[in-house]
């Protein structure tokens, strides 16, 4: 921070001086210890005496002049610190507890690196950061009130935590009650901001000095970016933001250097053991959750799978493996003699079947052969908290390696390579040939399955996916929504090859994630000129549709295709299960679940927020031309939305 040549008065010091002056105005000591009101003193006759106030003014040290301005509030220094982190954007719904920081970003910081994004809900701010980070590989900053803003943001923070995604959250708060100016500021103040989300953030701090803020801000970034990544919270006290940088701190303030922590790699001896198990297996299977943090992770995973001709069962939580690769989806838990889970947060669920919700009781059954060997390589073991249960069931495995899969894969590949004998090479190649044949059948089957109900209305999710693919397949595209609600059709029909072409889903299945996460991901894709596609569920959009305005306002190119099945469909299937179990009226389960009567007109909604839109589309023949038209708009740098009335799944 540049030094100012102007003298500046510390607000606390100013108020202290003002208080002394005011006391002098109302009380003059007469007899020791007994104050006498000034106005009670009788003037001497015949003389012209100064007024009491003038007398005080002349005989007392001059009161400190009202301090109206400062050229360097503490928030300017905070901006210096945040700029050092290379953060591109700050997503925020405006709030008084961070008004100084807001002003410093747009004026002192010139609204560049970071640039402020106007959000209409704090849940949107965080989910935008969630989507952005999965494309860009680094955090976007969020500002929010330490109370009501954080309350709005909390579900989105939990999603990001469960998805192990870094989000950099700065909260405003007025810690010292003497500085709260109204009932609003009292209601918006809290003793310990971050306590509300401490169960699902990696770290937080509430520094009480600018020096402390600087160190904690850099530390927070470092922690957020160290695998397993996660959201962090930093509290920016409002008085620290708004008051001038104290004189005594000016010479000492500095921005600490960011020392990024290298990701933790698996123990070499354990990696060697894992290589032996993989090479020796006759029918190995790799299960992937989130191993590919970056393009390098995808590349390494393909290299490992091809080296050993191991099929990959992808949980679709990141873009881990090319979807048309002969090893994609061709393995089987039932026949595997060795299963390796890579960054799979729910590994137990993968290898077990449980009694479905439609049946009574609860039993589980291992899906692998009883003597199959099991191993995990993951950072999930390195970050486990108690209260929220996203960690899932305990895994009884033969080898558990705590380490970042992407970082460990190169050494695992080398260890495997050294162990492959000529005999093993022949067996591996034979396995590869079998899997390639199975892959071809799977892909043929996908096309045949997609043809069923092709011309029906509501439009099938297969037709919707095929029509989108037909329009984007020659573009540099990126799908930024999950595929689970479309019966996985995009991953069955499209050719996913690049890391940014898929980012997985919610993390903790907190609905309301998708619409804002898509906007954040599209924002990250914008500078690369990618065509961002979002297949948007109707229920999800209705939590905070104002994010459509944010996309329009900031000119974030994004193709939104509404998957409008006019219901909270997962829930109505559950309630149907309950009705059938209870032998009661299944026809009534739309009550409380359907989003109809009236139907929501999403095209009109989008228009209201300033977004190009088409729909509702009910005739499947109209869909292709609509997508083509919307892509023309998106290519001009605008978002667009097509409302498609669709089958449930």
């Amino acid at each position: 921070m540049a030094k100012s040549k102007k003298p500046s008065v510390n607000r606390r010091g100013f108020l202290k001086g003002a208080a002394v002056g005011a006391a002098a105005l109302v009380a003059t000591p007469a007899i020791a210890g007994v104050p006498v009101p000034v106005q009670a003193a009788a003037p001497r006759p015949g003389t012209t005496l100064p007024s009491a106030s003038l007398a005080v003014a002349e005989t007392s040290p001059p009161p400190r002049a009202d301090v109206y301005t400062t050229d360097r509030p503490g928030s300017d220094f905070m901006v210096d610190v945040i700029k050092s982190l290379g953060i591109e954007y700050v997503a925020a719904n405006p709030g008084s507890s961070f008004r100084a920081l807001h002003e410093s970003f747009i004026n002192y910081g010139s609204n560049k690196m970071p640039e402020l994004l106007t959000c209409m809900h704090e849940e949107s701010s965080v989910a935008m950061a969630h989507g952005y980070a999965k494309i860009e590989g680094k955090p976007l900053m969020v500002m929010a009130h330490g109370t009501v803003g954080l309350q709005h943001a909390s579900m989105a923070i939990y999603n990001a935590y469960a998805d192990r995604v870094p989000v950099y959250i700065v909260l405003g708060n007025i810690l010292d009650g003497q500085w709260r100016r109204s009932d609003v500021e009292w209601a918006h103040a809290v003793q310990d901001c971050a306590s509300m989300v401490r169960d699902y953030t990696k770290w937080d701090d509430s520094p009480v000095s600018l020096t402390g803020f600087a160190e904690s801000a850099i530390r927070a970034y470092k922690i957020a970016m160290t695998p397993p990544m996660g959201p962090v919270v930093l509290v920016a006290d409002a008085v620290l933001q708004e008051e001038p940088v104290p004189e005594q701190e000016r010479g000492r303030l500095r921005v600490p250097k960011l020392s990024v922590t290298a990701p933790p790699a698996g123990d070499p001896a354990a990696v060697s053991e894992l290589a032996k198990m993989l090479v020796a297996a006759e029918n190995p299977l790799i299960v992937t959750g989130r191993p590919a943090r970056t393009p390098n992770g995808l590349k390494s995973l393909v290299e490992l799978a091809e080296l050993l001709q191991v099929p990959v069962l992808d949980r679709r939580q990141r873009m881990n493996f090319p979807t048309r690769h002969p090893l994609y989806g061709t393995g089987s838990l039932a026949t595997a003699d060795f299963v390796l889970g890579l960054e799979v947060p729910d590994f137990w669920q993968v290898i077990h079947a449980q009694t479905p919700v439609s049946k009574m009781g609860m039993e589980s059954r291992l899906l692998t052969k009883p003597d199959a060997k099991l191993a995990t390589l993951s950072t999930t073991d390195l970050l486990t908290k108690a209260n929220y249960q996203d960690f899932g069931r305990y895994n009884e495995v033969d080898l558990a390696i705590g380490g970042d899969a992407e970082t460990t894969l190169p050494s695992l590949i080398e260890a495997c390579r050294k162990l492959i004998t000529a005999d093993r090479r022949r067996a591996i190649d034979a396995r590869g040939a079998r899997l390639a044949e199975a892959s071809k059948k799977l892909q043929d089957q996908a096309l045949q399955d997609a043809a069923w109900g092709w011309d029906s209305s509501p439009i099938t999710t297969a037709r919707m996916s095929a029509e989108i693919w037909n329009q984007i397949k020659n573009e540099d595209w990126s799908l930024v929504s999950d595929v689970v609600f479309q019966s996985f059709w995009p991953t069955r029909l499209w050719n996913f090859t690049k890391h940014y072409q898929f980012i997985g889903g919610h993390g903790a299945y907190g609905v309301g994630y998708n619409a804002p996460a898509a906007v954040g991901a599209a924002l990250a894709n914008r500078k690369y000129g990618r065509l961002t596609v979002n297949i948007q569920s109707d229920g999800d959009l209705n939590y905070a549709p104002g994010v459509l305005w944010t996309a329009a306002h900031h000119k974030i190119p994004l193709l939104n295709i509404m998957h409008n099945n006019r219901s909270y469909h997962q829930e109505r299937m559950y309630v149907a299960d309950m009705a059938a179990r209870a032998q009661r009226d299944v026809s009534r389960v739309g009550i409380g679940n359907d989003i109809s009567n009236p139907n929501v007109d999403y095209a009109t909604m989008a228009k209201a927020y300033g977004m190009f839109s088409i729909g509702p589309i009910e005739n499947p023949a109209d869909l292709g031309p609509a997508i083509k038209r919307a892509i023309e708009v998106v290519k001009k740098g605008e978002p667009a939305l097509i409302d498609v009335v669709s089958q449930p799944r």
Partner: protein
Amino acid sequence: MIKPIVVLTLVAVPLFVAAQTAPAGSAGKGQQTFLTQNCYYCHGTVGQGSRDGARIAATSLTADGLIRYVRKPAGAMPAYTEKVISDQDLRDIYAYLKAQPAAKTPKEIPILDQSRDK
């Protein structure tokens, strides 16, 4: 709001290929029942199937086979007793499903046929 989503396994429909009598139900009534009883939630409005329910359009089951399956299903499908849906309703649904045309081949649908081009 936290909504757990269970990835349901596809209903494994046994294939009864035994000789069968002609459907004794009404396809029109069957369509109405299929929709009002919300069978389409998992199986799609024309029985095309989805992540949550098997494809049952143009089913190869017999009507009796369908009824037996609905009363005691395997997999994730709930059991629908006669209190919930009658045998006659299921025969109507069966008629509706049997009336569904077979899907075209991918080669007959240009978008699908060309989808492998890229």
